[in-house]
């Protein structure tokens, strides 16, 4: 009775160190791809932290404003709030002044998104980790992740644009790698930004009915203003900020894929070239090329599969560890990311098997008799 010899597996496990190095290479490449996609998604999520939590349905701003972050030229008189409240369906119209500002803490210059809102109205901090939201001039609440990184707590003081401010609270769920949120009163923000009596945005909360109809009513009444639903302005912020990373991300992912494919290629090529005589013997006794290709492909896919599983585990562990160590970095893994990682491993295996297959195709069965 003839038994099948598991040639592919035996060759793979014959040199454990080589196998481990190959798995390590694929694992790192897969993990890198996963981390990059996770980081991009995390940035996309952090970019819209304000819109996701502020509680407004519609954002009203001046002119062609399309974004909340980096909105730049947007200012409207505070009196506009009264007119907005008269539109049917508007429950509240809260003025908010926002701007990117640099907060100097110790020797670090931290880019933050300053939000000035009216105490007790929409637009202020939504969750406090410590202390209370700012209520009067000279008060500020800081994102707790940023505050912790700089050993700040409620009761401390910071200097922003030359003005001393009392830290009255630390806010939760406001962290961001790019621009953590900091909050003050709308009047204080106006004073700091030299735009007193003006607002960057009016945050509208709907009383009743579909918000899309409310948006239309406001836009009709104020044709020169920018009127956007929460989801629309959030989508614009995501596009503006996250697309910044698209090209560098694509470069990194392609390079990582190339590295993974080459690692598989080097390993399988090593097996093939060191066993030319054995493969020659197999050819000489009638083994078909297709069988040998299958053998090599099996090895490539086995490395890719195990590397993929290990890579996913590493990616999960690394993203958790990084987030635990530096909470400002958020990694969000989506189902599509895992599909991409599987595809990446598949592409690595296919590309990695190419060169060894070519070597096998050219191998002369007579080679075995020559030595």
């Amino acid at each position, binding site marked *: 009775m003839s038994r099948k010899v598991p040639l592919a597996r035996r060759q793979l496990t014959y040199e454990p160190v080589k196998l481990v190095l190959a798995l390590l290479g694929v694992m790192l490449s897969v993990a*890198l791809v996963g981390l990059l996609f996770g980081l991009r998604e995390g940035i996309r999520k952090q970019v819209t932290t304000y819109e996701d939590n502020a509680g407004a349905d519609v954002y009203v701003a001046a002119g062609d404003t399309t974004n909340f972050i980096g909105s*730049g030229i947007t200012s409207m008189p505070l009196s506009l709030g009264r007119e907005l409240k008269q539109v049917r369906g508007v429950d509240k119209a809260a003025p908010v002044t926002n701007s990117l500002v*640099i907060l100097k803490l110790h020797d670090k*210059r931290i*880019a933050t998104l300053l939000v000035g809102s009216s105490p007790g109205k929409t637009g202020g901090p939504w969750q406090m980790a410590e202390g209370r939201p700012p209520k009067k001039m000279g008060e500020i609440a800081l994102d707790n992740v940023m505050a912790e990184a700089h050993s700040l707590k409620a009761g401390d003081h910071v200097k922003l644009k030359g003005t001393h401010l009392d830290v009255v609270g630390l806010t939760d769920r406001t962290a961001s790698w790019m621009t953590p949120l900091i909050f003050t009163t709308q009047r204080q923000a106006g004073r700091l930004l030299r735009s007193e009596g003006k607002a960057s945005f009016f945050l509208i909360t709907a009383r009743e009915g579909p918000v899309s109809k409310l948006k239309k009513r406001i836009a009709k009444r104020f044709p020169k203003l920018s009127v956007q639903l929460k989801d629309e302005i959030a989508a614009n912020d995501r596009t503006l900020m996250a697309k910044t990373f*698209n090209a560098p991300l694509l470069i990194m992912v392609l*390079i990582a894929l190339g590295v993974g494919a080459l690692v598989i290629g*080097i390993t399988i090529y090593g097996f093939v070239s060191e066993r030319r005589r054995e493969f020659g013997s197999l050819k000489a006794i009638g083994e078909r090329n297709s069988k040998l290709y299958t053998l090599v492909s099996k090895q490539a896919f086995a490395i890719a599969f195990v590397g993929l599983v290990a890579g996913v585990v590493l990616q999960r562990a690394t993203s958790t560890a990084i987030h635990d160590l530096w909470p400002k*970095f958020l990694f969000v893994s989506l189902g599509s990311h895992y599909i991409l990682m599987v595809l990446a491993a598949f592409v690595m295996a296919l590309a990695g098997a190419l060169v060894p297959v070519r070597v096998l195709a050219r191998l002369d069965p007579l080679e075995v008799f020559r030595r």
Partner: protein
Amino acid sequence: MMGVVPLASRNLLRQKLRFVLSMAGVGLALLLILSLDSIYTAVLRQVTAYPDNAGSPLIASQRAVETMHMSNSALPMSVVDDLRGDKRVARAEPILYQTVALGRKQQVYSYLIGFRKKGGPWRMVKGSSRPKDSEIVIDKRTAERLGVGVGAKVRIAGRRLKVVGLASGTTSVISSVAFVSYKTMERLLGTVGSASYVLIWPAKGQSADELASKLERDHAKVTVQTKEEFSKHERQVVSDMSTGLIRGMLIIGFIVGVVVAGLSIYTATTSRLREYAMLKAIGMRNMKLYGMISRQALMTVAAGLLLAMVLLFGLSQLVPRLDPIVSMVITPESLLRAVAITAIMGLISALLPARRVARVDPASVYRS
């Protein structure tokens, strides 16, 4: 006469295909590090493009504001007049600054500068460098991204501004610089009689460094910095924000490089174990063998580095064509860093195969 046999290179080059694969693997791992480094360098360079090229040795801003990137500075025009009236100042030119999203469908995050006579674009590719009312000068790469040219109109804050010139050298992956007249900017901002920053030229005989501290002491509402200090602080904002991330990516790239180089050298070494045993049998010492393996490792990573540099150059030409706002800058410092990383990578990757060779029994050569 006895010649020295270049065993390391012969061993390495005997299987050319494997060498090419190894070189490509190490090259790609190094490319991972180098491309990230060059994108980051381009960002750092662009973030200081304005203070570096505005032309003034000193820049004044609102008290305690030291940067432009992700900042906001506002000064009443009376402060500009005070600075102009200072005898130690030869010239003081206000500029208005604001960050804006240029375009509607394809948006580019941009610094918008409103200027009078000084502080405008420094390098033009096409058209006028002096925008008049309701006109704008944008960077050539921004224009490509937005799909517009000279004569086209772009929307900012509800107004349509005519593109009258294309500048260069102001765009990076994080932002760009666009220029309008001071009046246009005042209209866009809805404010009159204020400035964001003041460009200052010292009077004859005044050193920029000393004048900066004197002006800051005598004018309570401003922070005055030399353009070098200003640029340093701009760079710090970006590097403080991204250092951890960049370092993490560099570490991953480094480990990948070590693994790939280690794998190739290990594979090359184990396929020649008999030859190494032979060398041991005829009296070659382990130290010499280690040296040989290290040379192979260094040669592999050096070849990988060369390939990475060629690929990087190609990438730096290709990437801006695919996405005009992404630029890559290759500096001698980053190449030197890459050489150092490569050398360390090579030496670490030689460790595993060296251990394997150390364990080879010289007598094994006679057994088979």
